[in-house]
Structure formats: structure tokens, C-alpha cells
């Protein structure tokens, strides 16, 4: 470059520019010049071409757009002299990317250089391919690059570059290189022999080649090849087992024999990079079987673990600890003997007390990992004081690690200590951590509570200390517990009463107190300072300080206090009535409505008793907190550790199982109401082995019908009716006996091993009932999408099974449990879903006769070696899918309506407990399930008239008519009349519409502990009388 005067003049011109503007002018001038020269017909001398291409590169580096002259750059690649070739390669790799068409022109020249004899040219070419080699390069050059890598005649310099180039090609296009590149010679050789043989032999061949490479003496080549190996085995380790002993050999050579040339030692450590890479590669293999290899590996690891010390020199420290921590994770991966583990933990224990923050951080992080994988819990516990000290470290990332570790290591034995420590720390922790901290404290308290009063204490303390950071879920949870545990109620009430005496309390505390005192305040009535009037007094003091969402809660509490005041207290009544009157004109609708209603109710005396009866118990459910914390932790890290953790699902289970740890089962039990669980919970518990022995109890209770729960998650005490044999699916291992299920403390074993679906399956199903495509089910490994088309009584669903992870899902099974009215044909579901692939399974549906029953898809797959996930999913092939919207005029409608008279063709029913909807909302609802509203047919504006056509094989296309008469004064009831030419259809359609009107509290309420809404059991007309008498139904909307 030295001889080019024009270039250096240009560069100095640019450097001398005073400002951006002057620079731009100079650049534009130069570009004009270059354009003129390139356009010159006479052609350029190689010198000039080189000079201008360098200038182009310089201009490109300055950030200007250079969109011409690529041809010249590419043509320089095939120039005979080195200086021109060099500029050609450099500029091409800078200006072009792998998607440019121009690169195609270069492939041949590059290939000539690669297969040529000149080393310098080979290096240039390999660098270019490594930098911008796209698919086409991979396809045409990978075999040549590979040949270079394994050729014995090449110098290490070239082979190093070849290895790295191949690595890059593999990373960009694993399929190309794997299938055609690495073993292409082989395939060519064997293509006339039978196919399976090619496959296996190519594997072996590949591995052999790789193993051969690992015998290399030159450490540079070895390091590059090791990078390649890491990349190859991270994709698929099978077939590389012959490399395993070689890797161990390399480690031995480096760490034990220290047989390394001087230039590859770094601060006295023999090639730390190679050591780290080798150990990383080993982590991608499952455990080592061969005892002698294993022994020698452990010997090396032992040496590394023992031989590392913290020294002054930062670089040496970094290098040695990089090796050490990789060794630690290898030890964890290999499930070494207890002795070695404890040695590791001891080492980590030493690190977390070191001054150097980097090492402390790594120590804590690795301890957390160790917790995930190994059973080192007891050993780690010894370091608890040290970890707690780290919680007070000045460095926030260390504090976070410490918090994670504490959260992970907590179990029944040390929960009390840790939670108290966290609570104490909460008051001094900085704001960014408080929310996570309070959430984790709440979860630990819930998970490992020795008794529930302690749990209540902890949560109240938590709210008191860090009210701003306590999410609603936390206090919902505590209220849920108190409501479900009668023994706890007086204790909780007295406890919150104590907190109320504090001068300034947080709003969340006011909420909890208001709720608990309203419900259970009367239990304290005998105690001093706890009469209804006094409770009202202290609660009412807080009212001016709270925000508007809390006021309705307080109003409910007042109403309850008033009811519980025994004997009736006129003075209190006056005060409370004053409050109600005051809020009767509140601008907030919620407050206003409650004030008005409570005021009217409280005048009625006896009715008040009914309405304000104690809240019914909450259905037991999984803590939403845990889900929340899982969401936070979910990262897409595809490390060896993670892979490993997924392969070994049962380890964590073993160590977290509380039974062997504390010996006694949790002392508290909640009297169970029913076997209700969230549907996904039950769906994924098909393999909870620890409870297998108890399952007989479950199977004897016919009411806890699994399917029934799935279809209606809110059903309470479903009467043991016969639901039609085709619907009943019993699975013995499904059940967990009610006693265990109902306790506040959910057995940890179940949670650790379960795959949680993402999102609520019921909500997804409900959404799919109204639209034709969407997600039916999703968990961390798979996503099932549905797309449907409906024509008459035929339908075609396509299930999209998408594998979300990078390892295949095996043993995929899908079984359809069709109800009698549907004919379902599912095409073949493949046994395996390849990594990150999507499989489509078409499903043909034919409707034979009207029915509201739902088809169920029993779906299961295997992840890794032992994890079986199964789910029962309702398919959205429901009644309304076979409807066709139809708009009628009054001339068409009324003759039909009159001709269908009286049962069974025309049915009428008064429906109560309807979700209150405005008329337009109701219209939308009807239209969404394809029943068309015909406006203007009914003279009364509060009534709706609708029509649709139903298709099934038995009935002809059948006209269906419906009329809904609403009561503007009471939106929760209406009269529904349905008519059609088929009695079954009329009944089914009526029931369907009724379900739609009553069911599904919408998403906004999902967080609130749901109050059970009575809903009709399936296939059985419900008695409306039940609805009207149930106070729960009337209060359903209030909380």
C-alpha cells in the first residue's frame, strides 16, 4: 500500500477537512473521479484499479454509500499478483454480504485459490469464505475446505484457518455442511451401495476424521478443531463418541503433563482456551461410560480443582478461573462422586468469601447451578451464613445471585431462617430488587411454611415493610388461605387488628385488613377493642387515605360489620348509613353501586344475612406467584447446563421432595370442597409417580370426573350424573387424593416435574370456539396451533405441531376421543417432531347430529429421555361451527316463527344469573357464534331476534330462530325462546346459547380469586331455581 500516492493524498485530504460538509464534498468528488475511471473504455492498469478499489473501501469505511465498483473488486480476486489479490479479497468481504449475487462470480476464483498450492492465497480465500460465505459457498466449497483441514501436507496456519472456516460454514448452514460437506467424499463413494450403510458409515467416517484431528500435536490447529467439535456436538453428539477419549487425552496432556510449547502458555497456564473448550465439548456428551477414561478425566479435574489459587495478577486469575469454573461445570455435569462434589462446594464456598467480586459472583452463580443439578443441598447449606452476607454486598449483581441462590436452596428445614433474613433485608434492599425479593419471600413462605399462622405473619410483615412492591397476587393468596382454613381465621383477624393500630399503614394492608376483618371480625367480638363499632372506627379512619379501588372493599366490610354487630347497634348503623349515603353519588360506578345496594340491603335485615353470608371457600389452585417467578426466569439460554438440566428432570425432584427431608407431612389441612383443580394441572399430572399409591382413593370418587372439570373449570360439586359413557375418561394415576390436593402446601415434587402450559387452556379454547385459527395449547416445548375451515356439516381442521426447542420431541401421540355426534378422522401424526420444526396434521370433521359435546384430543409426547408430557385438549369443533349466518326479513321470519309452535320444536326458558351485557354487546356475542341478529323485527327495543342455519348429516340444512327478551331493570336475567324444525336441535341450541350467556367470566377477572359460579352440568338441563337461591351467584360480580 506504500506506493500509492493518490490514496495517501486522498486520505490526508479527508483528514484535513474541517467539518463534515467539506468531507462530503471531497468524497463526492472522489467518487465522481472513480466512476469516470471505471467507466473508461480503455480499461485500467492493475495499479490504478487497486488504488481506486482501496479508495472505495476507505470511503465505505467512512460511512458513505458505495454502490458501484463491486465488479472491479471481485475481478481483482483472480488477479495474479498478491497486492491485487489482497485488495480484492479484503474489499469484497467488506462491501458484499452473503446475499449479493456478485459473490457468485467470485466462487470459482476463490475455489481455485483454495485448491491451489500457494499458502498465502489459501489463507486469503479461507478468510473470505469464513467471513461472508453463504449457502452457495458452503455447498460448493465445504468439501475443499475440509480436505485442507485434514490434509497432511498443509501447514498448521492453513489448517487452523480451514477449521475456523468450516466452523463458520457449519454454523450458518448446519444441514449443508453436515450432510454434504463433512462426509461428502463418503457419500460419493458409497452411493451405489445401500442407503442405511451410507448413513451409518458416514457418521463413523466423520467421527473418525474428527478423532484423527484431535490427535494433532499443534495446539493452534487443535484449538480451532476443538471449536469446530464444540459446535458439532452441541448440535448432535451422537457419532462423536470416539472423540471422547481423545478429549480426555488432550486435557491430560495440558493439565497433567503440561506438555505444551512455551508460546502456548499464558501466565504459566497451558493454553487455557483449549482447556476450556475441551471441557465445554465434554459437557455435550452424556456421562462417560468407560471407567478408565472416566478415572483419568476425574484425575485431571481433581488436579485443576486443587491446583488453582487466587493470585495477585488479574490476567492469570482470569485465565485460571476460567479453566476452574469450566471444570466445575464439567464435574456437575458428570455427576461425580459425592466426595468430589463436596470438594467442589468447598471450593465454591471459598470463592464466595473471596474479596475479588468477579470470583464471588461466579461462585454464587455456580452454586445455584449446582443446586439445580446435583444433590449437594446439604453441603451448600453449610455456607448459608456466607451467602446471607453476600446479600449485603455493595455490588448489586452479586446480591441478585445471592438472592437466587437463597431462593433455590430453601427447603423446609431452613425456610424460616431464610425468609426472616429476606424480610429483614427487604427494608434495606434497593427498589429495583424489592419486587422480586418480596415475590420470592412470599413464595418461599407459602411453599415451606411449617404452619400457616407463620405464613400469615410473614406475608403481613411483608406487606407492612414493602407494601409498594407486594403485587395483588400476594395478598389474594393470603386471603385465600385464611378463607379456606377455619382455624386460621381468628388468628389472622387478631393479627391484622394489631397492624391496624399502626399510625401509617400501606394501602395493601388496608385491603387485607378490610377483607379479613369484614369476614372474620366478629370472631374477635369478645376481645377488648374489637367490637364491631370499634373495628368500624379504625377502618373508617383509613378511608380518606386510600385510593378509589379500595373504597368498594371498605364498603363491603362496613356492610358485613353492620350485619355481624350483635346485638344490633343503632349508633353504628347510623354511622354506616351515613357513609353509604355519602357514596351514593360517587362518581365511581363501582362505589356508587355498592353504596346504593348495601344501603338498601341493610334496611332489609334478614335478607342482608343471606346476601352477606361468609364467603364460600376458594377452589384450590396452583399459586399464581410461582408461575410469575417462572416467567421472569425464563431465558432462552441454550447452554450445556440447560440441556443437561432438561435431560435429567428427576434430580431436582428427588432433592426437593419434602417427605424424606422433614419426615412429617405438613400439619395443616384444609377441608376440601371438591376435587376441583385447574384443568391444565390435572392434565399434566399423568405421571406423578410419588402419589401413585394413593390414587385408588381418587378413582372411587365418581364425581371428580376429569373431563367434567376440564369442560367447565368452575363447576362446583358437580352432581354425580351420568355424562354419557363416551365422555368418561378415568386415569388412575391422574388423581391426587383430595386431602393432599386441598392442603395449602402443594407437594413440591409435582411442581418440579411438571410442564406448565403457557397461558390458560380454557381461555384458549373459548377463544377458538369463536374464531377459526389460533393457538390451542402451548408449553415450553411445543405449541399446537389450529386452523379450521367449515363448510356445511363438514369441517377440516389442521393441527400445527411446532417444536420450540432444539432437540426432537419423540413418541408423539395424538388420540381423538370423539363424541357420538361427530365423525373425526385424524391423519397420521408423526412419531417425532424434529428440532424447531412444525408438523401439520389435518383432521376431517363431519357433524352427524346436533349436540354440544366436545371432542377431546389426548395428546402426549416425550421430551428428552424420561419426561413424558401429556395433555387433554378440547377441540374447537363445537356446535356453533356448524351454523351459517342467515339474515331474515320480517316477511320470512314471522311465518316460520308461527309455524314452529310449542315444545319440543319451540322451547322457552327464563335464564337467570346471566353475565350482564348491554344489548350491543349481546348482539356482538351472538354474531360471533354465527347466529345473526335481525334488527328491527321485534317492536320492543329490549328484545333481540336472531336466525341461523344449522348443518348436520341427519338434519337437512335447518333454519333456527331465536328470541331473547331482556329486562332493562335486571340485566342478569332474560327469557330465551328457540325454535327450529328439529327437537334435539332446538334443545341443544337453547342450551348452547344459555351456556354462552352465563359462562366465562372474562380475562380481566382472572386474577381475582374466583367465586364459584354455578353452571349447568353437561347434557342436563339445570334447574334455574338453584341459581336464584345461591348467594354466591349474586355476589359473583362483587369481589
Amino acid at each position, binding site marked *: 500500500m506504500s506506493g500509492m500516492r493518490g490514496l495517501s493524498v486522498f486520505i490526508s485530504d479527508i483528514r484535513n477537512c*474541517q*467539518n*463534515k*460538509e467539506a468531507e*462530503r*464534498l*471531497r468524497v*463526492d*468528488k472522489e*467518487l*465522481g*473521479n472513480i*466512476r*469516470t475511471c*471505471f*467507466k*473508461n473504455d480503455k480499461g485500467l492498469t492493475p495499479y490504478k484499479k487497486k488504488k481506486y478499489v482501496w479508495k472505495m473501501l476507505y470511503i465505505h469505511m467512512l460511512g458513505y454509500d458505495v*454502490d*458501484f*465498483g*463491486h465488479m472491479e473488486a471481485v475481478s481483482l480476486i483472480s488477479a495474479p499478483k498478491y497486492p491485487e489479490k489482497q485488495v480484492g479479497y479484503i474489499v469484497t468481504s467488506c462491501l458484499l454480504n452473503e446475499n*449479493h449475487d*456478485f459473490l457468485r462470480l467470485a466462487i470459482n476464483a476463490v475455489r481455485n485459490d483454495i485448491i491451489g498450492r500457494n499458502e498465502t492465497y489459501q489463507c486469503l480465500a479461507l478468510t473470505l469464505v469464513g467471513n461472508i460465505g453463504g449457502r452457495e459457498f458452503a455447498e460448493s466449497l465445504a468439501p475443499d475446505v475440509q480436505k485442507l483441514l485434514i490434509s497432511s501436507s498443509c501447514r498448521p496456519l492453513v489448517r487452523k484457518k480451514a477449521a475456523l472456516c468450516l466452523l463458520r460454514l457449519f454454523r450458518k448452514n448446519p444441514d449443508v455442511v453436515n450432510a454434504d460437506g463433512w462426509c461428502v467424499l463418503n457419500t460419493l463413494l458409497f452411493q451405489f451401495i445401500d442407503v442405511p450403510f451410507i448413513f451409518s458409515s458416514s457418521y463413523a467416517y466423520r467421527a473418525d476424521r474428527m478423532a484423527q484431528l484431535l490427535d494433532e500435536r499443534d495446539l493452534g490447529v487443535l484449538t480451532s478443531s476443538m471449536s469446530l467439535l464444540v459446535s458439532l456436538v452441541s448440535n448432535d453428539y451422537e457419532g462423536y463418541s470416539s472423540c471422547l477419549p481423545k478429549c480426555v487425552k488432550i486435557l491430560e496432556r495440558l493439565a497433567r503433563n503440561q506438555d505444551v510449547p512455551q508460546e502456548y502458555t499464558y501466565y504459566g497456564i497451558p493454553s487455557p482456551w483449549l482447556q476450556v473448550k475441551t471441557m465445554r465439548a465434554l459437557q455435550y456428551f452424556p456421562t462417560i461410560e468407560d471407567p478408565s477414561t472416566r478415572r483419568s478425566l476425574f484425575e485431571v479435574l481433581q488436579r485443576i480443582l486443587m491446583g488453582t489459587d487466587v493470585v495477585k495478577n488479574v490476567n492469570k486469575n482470569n485465565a485460571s478461573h476460567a479453566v476452574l469454573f469450566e471444570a466445575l461445570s464439567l464435574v456437575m455435569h458428570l455427576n461425580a462422586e459425592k466426595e468430589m462434589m463436596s470438594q467442589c462446594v468447598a471450593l465454591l464456598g471459598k470463592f464466595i468469601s473471596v474479596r475479588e467480586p468477579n470470583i464471588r459472583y461466579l461462585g454464587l452463580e455456580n452454586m445455584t447451578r449446582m443446586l439445580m443439578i446435583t444433590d449437594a443441598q446439604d453441603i451448600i447449606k453449610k455456607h448459608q451464613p456466607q451467602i446471607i452476607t453476600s446479600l449485603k454486598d455493595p455490588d448489586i449483581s452479586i446480591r441478585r445471585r445471592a438472592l437466587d441462590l437463597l431462593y433455590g436452596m430453601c427447603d423446609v428445614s431452613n425456610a424460616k431462617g431464610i425468609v426472616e433474613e429476606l424480610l429483614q433485608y427487604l427494608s434495606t434492599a434497593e427498589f429495583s430488587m424489592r419486587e422480586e425479593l418480596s415475590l420470592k419471600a412470599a413464595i418461599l413462605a407459602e411453599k415451606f411454611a411449617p404452619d400457616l399462622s407463620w405464613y400469615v405473619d410473614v406475608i403481613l410483615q411483608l406487606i407492612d415493610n414493602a407494601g409498594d412492591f407486594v403485587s395483588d397476587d400476594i395478598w389474594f393468596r393470603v386471603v385465600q388461605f385464611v378463607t379456606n382454613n377455619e382455624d386460621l381465621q381468628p388468628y389472622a383477624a387478631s393479627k391484622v387488628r394489631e397492624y391496624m393500630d399502626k399510625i401509617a399503614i400501606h394501602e395493601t394492608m388496608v385491603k387485607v385488613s378490610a377483607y379479613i376483618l369484614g369476614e372474620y371480625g366478629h370472631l374477635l367480638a369478645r376481645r377488648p377493642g374489637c367490637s364491631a363499632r370499634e373495628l368500624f372506627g379504625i377502618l373508617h379512619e383509613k378511608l380518606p387515605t386510600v385510593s378509589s379501588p379500595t373504597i368498594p372493599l371498605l364498603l363491603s366490610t362496613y356492610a358485613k360489620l353492620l350485619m355481624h354487630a350483635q346485638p344490633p347497634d343503632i349508633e353504628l348503623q347510623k354511622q354506616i348509613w351515613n357513609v353509604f349515603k355519602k357514596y351514593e353519588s360517587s362518581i365511581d360506578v363501582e362505589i356508587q353501586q355498592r353504596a346504593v345496594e348495601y344501603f338498601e340491603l341493610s334496611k332489609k335485615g334478614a335478607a342482608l344475612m343471606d346476601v352477606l353470608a361468609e364467603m364460600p371457600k376458594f377452589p384450590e389452585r396452583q399459586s399464581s406467584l410461582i408461575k410469575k417467578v417462572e416467567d421472569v426466569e425464563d431465558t432462552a439460554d441454550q447452554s450445556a447446563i440447560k440441556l443437561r438440566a432438561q435431560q435429567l428432570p428427576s434430580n431436582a425432584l428427588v432433592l426437593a421432595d419434602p417427605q424424606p427431608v422433614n419426615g412429617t407431612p405438613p400439619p395443616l389441612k384444609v377441608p376440601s370442597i371438591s376435587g376441583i383443580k385447574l384443568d391444565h394441572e390435572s392434565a399434566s399430572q399423568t405421571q406423578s409417580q410419588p402419589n401413585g399409591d394413593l390414587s385408588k382413593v381418587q378413582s372411587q370418587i365418581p364425581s371428580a370426573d376429569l373431563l367434567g372439570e376440564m369442560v367447565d373449570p368452575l363447576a362446583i360439586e358437580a352432581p354425580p350424573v351420568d355424562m354419557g359413557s363416551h365422555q368418561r375418561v378415568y386415569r388412575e394415576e391422574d388423581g391426587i387424593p383430595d386431602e393432599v390436593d386441598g392442603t395449602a402446601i402443594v407437594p413440591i415434587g409435582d411442581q418440579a416435574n411438571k410442564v406448565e402450559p403457557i397461558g390458560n387452556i380454557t381461555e384458549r379454547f373459548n377463544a377458538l370456539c369463536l374464531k377459526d385459527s389460533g393457538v390451542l395449547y402451548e408449553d415450553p416445548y411445543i405449541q399446537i396451533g389450529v386452523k379450521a375451515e367449515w363448510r356445511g356439516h363438514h369441517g377440516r381442521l389442521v393441527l400445527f405441531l411446532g417444536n420450540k426447542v432444539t432437540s426432537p420431541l419423540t413418541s408423539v401421540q395424538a388420540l381423538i376421543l370423539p363424541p357420538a355426534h361427530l365423525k373425526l378422522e385424524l391423519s397420521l401424526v408423526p412419531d417425532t417432531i424434529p428440532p424447531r420444526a412444525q408438523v401439520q396434521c389435518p383432521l376431517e370433521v363431519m357433524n352427524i347430529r346436533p349436540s354440544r359435546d366436545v371432542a377431546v384430543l389426548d395428546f402426549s409426547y416425550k421430551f428428552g429421555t424420561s419426561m413424558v408430557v401429556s395433555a387433554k385438549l378440547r377441540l374447537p369443533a363445537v356446535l356453533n361451527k356448524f351454523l351459517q349466518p342467515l339474515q331474515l326479513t320480517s316477511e320470512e321470519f314471522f311465518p316460520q316463527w308461527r309455524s314452529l309452535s310449542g315444545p319440543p320444536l319451540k322451547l322457552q326458558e327464563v335464564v337467570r344469573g346471566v353475565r350482564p351485557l348491554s344489548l350491543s354487546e349481546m348482539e356482538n356475542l351472538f354474531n360471533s357464534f354465527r347466529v345473526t341478529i335481525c334488527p328491527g323485527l321485534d317492536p320492543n327495543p329490549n328484545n333481540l331476534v336472531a336466525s341461523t342455519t344449522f348443518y348436520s348429516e341427519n338434519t337437512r340444512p335447518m333454519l333456527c330462530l331465536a328470541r331473547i327478551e331482556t329486562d332493562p331493570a335486571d340485566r342478569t336475567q332474560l327469557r330465551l325462546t328457540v325454535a327450529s324444525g328439529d327437537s334435539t336441535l332446538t334443545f341443544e341450541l337453547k342450551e348452547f346459547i344459555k351456556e354462552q350467556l352465563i359462562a366465562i367470566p372474562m380475562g380481566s377477572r382472572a386474577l381475582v380469586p374466583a367465586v364459584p359460579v354455578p353452571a349447568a352440568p353437561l347434557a342436563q338441563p339445570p334447574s334455574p331455581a338453584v341459581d336464584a337461591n345461591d348467594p354466591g351467584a349474586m355476589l359473583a360480580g362483587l369481589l
Partner: protein
Amino acid sequence: MPVAASAIYFLNLRGDVLINRTYRDDVGGNMVDAFRTHIMQTKELGNCPVRQIGGCSFVYMRISNVYIVIVVSSNANVACAFKFVVEAVALFKSYFGGAFDEDAIRNNFVLIYELLDEIMDFGYPQNLSPEILKLYITQEGVRSPFSSKPKDKPVPNATLQVTGAVGWRREGLSYKKNEVFLDIVESVNLLMSSKGNVLRCDVTGKVLMKCFLSGMPDLKLGLNDKIGLEKESEMKSRPAKSGKTIELDDVTFHQCVNLTRFNSEKTVSFVPPDGEFELMKYRITEGVNLPFRVLPTINELGRTRMEVNVKVKSVFGAKMFALGVVVKIPVPKQTAKTNFQVTTGRAKYNPSIDCLVWKIRKFPGQTESTLSAEIELISTMGEKKSWTRPPIQMEFQVPMFTASGLRVRFLKVWEKSGYNTVEWVRYITKAGSYEIRC
């Protein structure tokens, strides 16, 4: 009176602050950094003279190699701010006696600070007239060596001057030779479509005067504008002359013009300040005589060739001529080779501005000249972006020609002593933004 500035900054082209003065506390001291990062270092610079960043408005202007930036945070009068900048620069120039640039600022820090204190108070502009300010800011600027104007002696009673009725002129001036120079300078703005339709056309004109008159003379100027002529004919009760009358829009006068007399008698009469000043400004939108017509044809032949043909016709009087005619014909960015044929002048390709620049030193009236060029383009990588075809731009000066047709009918000087004066009148028309689409 609205606020004009919260702070004023003088920056060099690199964005370094040379001098700044904060008048109000409502802007932070580091706002100029925002200007540097958001305006100077982006392509925004020069696109829009007023920019808002983070609640502050930046009103800026480049004069030689200095950016003058006014920062305001309230709803300020932007026109007032620009006027202030222009006047302040004129003031500085009169103090430095020459160029206003980075070096001049660096040499006159103290003086500039003193002036900045004086000419604006709490964001409100004050007296900016150099004659007056020189009475009490007597500090001399460091003059550049090229200017050597003799300095007048200051008159002691500055207060009288500042408060007096004729604030712009000192008493007791005397010249051997009493001369008045009057220039009418017009610039033509034009936007014409490729078919020759005038889309936008106006003329902005200035009447500039330079007076070297003794005593307290009273001057009266007569132009061939419509209002003045009508009034005149009305007063003299005789029909207006058959000559062309011009309708002036938006006339603004220097403060020396007696507006009450203008309103009642429609005559421009004034006591002029000494030396150079701008007597009036006006704008004309109708009846503009365009000095040049341009007929371009540009053909794109395929992806790599273009043909350009431009014919320029001068339409002013045959005895007159235009000077310094420059026609800039835009070409695509990928232009590689150009071939010209011109009848007069010289043409070349300038890659920095992506234009063919055709220069003609002298262009006589009622003639025409053509340029035809063949252009070769280089092929590029990306998909071809269609060329936007920016308009052709023209620069010229036509002496003794007014695009508006404005003429001076008389300029009378009356003084107590009754001396004779020599009056010089010149006309010149320049191109403003003279653009023809192609």
C-alpha cells in the same frame, strides 16, 4: 413585544462555542450540546432554520463560518429573533469594520460581550443602531487590516441622541461634496414547470441608499408605484401619466421615513442617517418581467445513458446584458462520464453537487444559447432507484434592469443652506431561487 431569545450562542463549524450569552434562566446551559448532536452532526443542518428539541426551540443561521444559534423555550417571535441576528451581525461588522467570522469573534470577545449586554435585555431586543451605540460603547473593535475607515469623532451628548427625535442622525455633519447614491436591488424567485408554466414567481426588492450630505437634509423620493402616482394625480387633479405603474406589496420603510406623511400624502420623505442604510423593502407578485427563459429536455436512454439539452433565452432589452450567468443542471449520482457541446460559455461536471455547471460570463439581451450533453452512468449494485429529477437552478445579475419595472421618478434634497447635491441611481436584478423543473 415578544421574547426573542433566552440565550444566544456563537458556534464555529465544528460546533465549539465561541461566545454565549444567556438572557433568561429558562434554558439549561447544556442546550447547545443538544444543538450540536441533534442538528449540526446530522443531515438536518441547513434544512430547517427552526428546530425544536426537548422543549426548546433552536433558531439558527450560518454567517460565513459561524453559526449563530438562538435558544428560546417560550413561544417566541421567530421573525424577531432572525431580525435580531441579522441586525446584530450588521452591528458587529460596523464595529469590526469588515468581515464577521470566527477570527473576528475571537479577537473581539470583550467588545462583543459589551454589545450583547446592550442590544438585548431579558430576551427583548434593544437599540441595535450602530450610530447610536457607538456613542456610548466607544471601545474600538480590533479591525482587520484590510479595512481602514476613518473614525468619526464622537459627540459628547449621547443622552440627547438616544432620546432625541432624530435618533439616527447627528447634527453638524458637513461634506465638501454632497452626494446621494440610490440602488434598487431586486431578486427574482421563480419556480417553473417543465412545460413552461409559472408555478411561483415573485420579486423581493430593496432600496439601498448611501448619503454623504451636510446638515439636516430633508429628502423626498418618488417612484412609479401605483399608490404614489394615484395620489399625485389626485392632488394635482390631472389624469395619471400613461406610463406603467407598479403595485408594491408589503412595503417596509427604514425608521427615518416619516410615516404620517406617507399615510397622508403618500410620499416617501425622510431625514436620512449618515452613510449606508436600507431605505425600504418591498415585494411584487404580479407583472414580473422574467429575464431568462429556460427550455430543458432530458432523456434517459436505458440504464446507463442520458441526453441533456438546455436552451437559455434572454428576454430583456437587447442593449442590456447579464453577468455571471450560471446554469446548474442536475444529473444522477451515478454519473461517470460527460460530453458537452455549448454555444457560449463553459460547462463541466461537478460531482460534489451532482450537477452540470454551465457558466457564461456575459449574456447579451435577446439572444439564446444552448448546451447539449451526453452522460454515461455507471451501473450500480442495488436495484435502481428512480432519479428524482431535481430542478435546474440559475444564477445571474442583470444591471440596469428591474424585474418589477420599478423606476425612480425623482429624488429631491432640501436643506436649509440650499447646497447642490449630486444624485446617483442604479438598478440591478439578481436571481433569488430561480428554478426550472425538468
